[in-house]
C-alpha cells in the first residue's frame, strides 16, 4: 500500500471517529434539553404556580366549588345565597399554594380542612339563626354531616389528580436529574474539547459542532412539532374546567421549552456552520 493510500485511509477513519463523536454530542445536547426542560417545569413548584396564575386557576376552582356547595345547599335546605356568600368570603389561593408547596417539598399532601370547617360552620350557624322558620328542624348530627360533606368538596376542589403519585417520583428523581444535567454538560464539554484539540485543522471542530447542534435542533423540533400539531393535550379528559385548563397549560408549557431549545440549537448550528465555512474559504483561498 502506498504512503498516499495509507494517509487517505487514516484520514477517513479519523473523519468517521469525529462524525461518531459529533453524533454523541448531538445525543448529549438532546438529552440536556430534555433534562433542563423537565428541571424548569415538572420539577419546579414555581412552574406549576405560574401555570395556575396564567389560567386563572384560583378563580375557576373557587367558582366550581361554589357550584358544588350550591348543590349541597339545595340538598340541605339552604339557599343558593348561602353558598354564594360563603364562597365569596373564602380565599382558597393560600391553601392551594401550600398544597403545591408541600407536594414539591416531599411533605404530606393531606389538605388541612380545619380552617374551612370552622368558617363553614360559623356561616351555617349564622344562616340558620337568620332563616330558621317554624317547624324547621335543626339536628346537630345533620349539620355535622353537612359540614363534612362541604369539607370533602373543598378537599376535592384543591386536590390535583395523581399529584401524590407523581410527588413520590419527583422527590426521588430531583437529585439524580441535577447530577445528570451536570454530567451531560461535562461530557458535552469534553467531546467539544476533543473535537477542537485533536483535529489537525482546528476550524473543522465547528463543522462537527454544527452537525451536532443541527441534529439536536431536529430532535427537539420533531418532538415539539408532533405534540403541537397533534394537539394531544387539548384532548385530555378531566372532570373540571379548571383542571383541564391547568393541565393543558402545564403540558404545553413543557414543549414550549423544547421549542426554545430547538431555536437555540439551530442558531448555534448555523453560527458554527458559517464560522466553519468562512474559515474554510479563507484557508482554501490562502492556498
Amino acid at each position: 500500500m502506498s504512503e498516499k493510500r495509507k494517509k487517505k485511509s487514516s484520514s477517513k477513519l479519523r473523519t468517521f471517529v469525529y462524525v461518531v463523536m459529533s453524533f454523541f454530542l448531538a445525543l448529549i445536547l438532546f438529552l440536556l434539553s430534555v433534562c433542563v426542560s423537565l428541571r424548569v417545569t415538572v420539577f419546579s413548584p414555581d412552574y406549576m404556580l405560574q401555570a395556575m396564575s396564567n389560567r386563572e386557576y384560583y378563580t375557576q376552582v373557587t367558582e366550581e366549588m361554589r357550584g358544588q356547595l350550591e348543590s349541597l345547599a339545595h340538598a340541605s335546605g339552604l339557599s343558593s345565597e348561602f353558598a354564594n356568600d360563603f364562597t365569596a368570603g373564602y380565599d382558597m389561593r393560600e391553601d392551594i399554594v401550600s398544597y403545591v408547596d408541600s407536594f414539591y417539598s416531599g411533605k404530606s399532601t393531606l389538605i388541612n380542612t380545619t380552617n374551612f370547617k370552622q368558617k363553614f360552620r360559623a356561616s351555617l350557624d349564622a344562616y340558620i339563626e337568620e332563616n330558621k322558620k317554624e317547624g324547621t328542624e335543626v339536628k346537630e348530627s345533620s349539620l355535622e354531616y353537612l359540614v363534612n360533606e362541604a369539607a370533602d368538596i373543598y378537599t376535592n376542589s384543591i386536590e390535583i389528580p395523581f399529584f401524590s403519585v407523581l410527588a413520590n417520583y419527583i422527590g426521588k428523581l430531583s437529585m439524580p436529574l441535577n447530577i445528570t444535567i451536570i454530567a451531560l454538560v461535562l461530557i458535552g464539554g469534553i467531546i467539544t474539547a476533543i473535537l477542537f484539540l485533536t483535529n489537525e485543522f482546528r476550524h473543522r471542530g465547528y463543522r462537527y459542532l454544527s452537525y451536532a447542534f443541527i441534529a439536536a435542533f431536529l430532535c427537539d423540533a420533531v418532538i415539539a412539532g408532533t405534540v403541537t400539531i397533534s394537539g394531544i393535550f387539548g384532548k385530555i379528559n378531566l372532570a373540571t374546567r379548571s383542571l383541564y385548563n391547568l393541565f393543558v397549560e402545564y403540558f404545553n408549557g413543557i414543549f414550549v421549552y423544547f421549542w426554545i431549545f430547538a431555536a437555540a440549537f439551530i442558531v448555534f448550528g448555523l453560527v458554527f456552520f458559517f464560522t466553519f465555512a468562512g474559515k474554510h474559504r479563507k484557508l482554501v483561498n490562502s492556498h
Partner: protein
Amino acid sequence: MHNKHHHHSSHRSLNGKNFIILPIVFCVLILGIASAIIIPNTMRFINMASMFFSDNPHDFSDEFKNIYVPTSEGLEEDVKEETSNAQSKKTTKTVPITDIEYPDYSDQFGEFIIEDCNIKCPLFYGDGDLQLNYGVGIYTGSFIPGYGRPILVAGHNATYFNGLKYAQKGQTILIRTSYGNYKYEITDIAVKKYNDKSAYDLGAREETLTLYTCYPFDQFGLTSQRCFVYAKYVSGPKLDISR
C-alpha cells in the same frame, strides 16, 4: 507544514450536503434509540395515559338539553278495550324504541307531576347535582318510562320533592314525555336508611316507579334517612324494545 496544506487542499469542497444529511441521520438514530429504550419500559404508563384522552372535546358547560315536547300520546283515551276471540283484553299502545329520541345523560326529557303533593317540575335523565338543581332525575342505572322495568327518581327534599311529605297511597303520579304520558299510582311509602339495599330492586322485570328523597323533610343539613315512595304502573305507551 507543507503536508498539512497539501492534506487540506485535497478536501477543498465544503461538503454542504453533509450539513443536512448527517443531522437527519443523527436525529433518526437518536429518536429511534430513545423510542426503543423508552417505549417498551413505559408502555404500561402510555396505555394508562391513553385513557385520559378522547377524540371529542370535553363539555364543561352547565347547560342541559331540553328534548321534551309535550304530547297527548298515552292519555286515558289511548288505552282501548279490544275484544278478541270473545275475550276482553285491555291493550296499550306500543311505540318502537327506535322512534323515540332516547335521552342522553343530563337531558330534560319530561315533566314530573303529583298534583296532590303540589309537585310539578322538569324530569331529567340522570340524578347528578345539575339535574337536581333544576328538577328531579331518573337514576341512569334504572329505566325510562314505558320500558317495562323499574324507574328510580331522585329529588331534593328541600326543593322539588319537598311535597312528598304529603304523599299518600292511591295518589296519582303523572310523567309526561315527548313519546307519551304515563300514570302511576302510589302503593306504599317508607322511610329507610340511605344504604338499605332492600329499598328497591332495579333487576325486577316489571315497570315500577320509586321516588326517593332525604328524610326528614324541612331540616337543615344532610340526613342519613331516605323517604321512599313506591308506585305501580297504570297507563302509558309501552316501548317496543324488539324493534
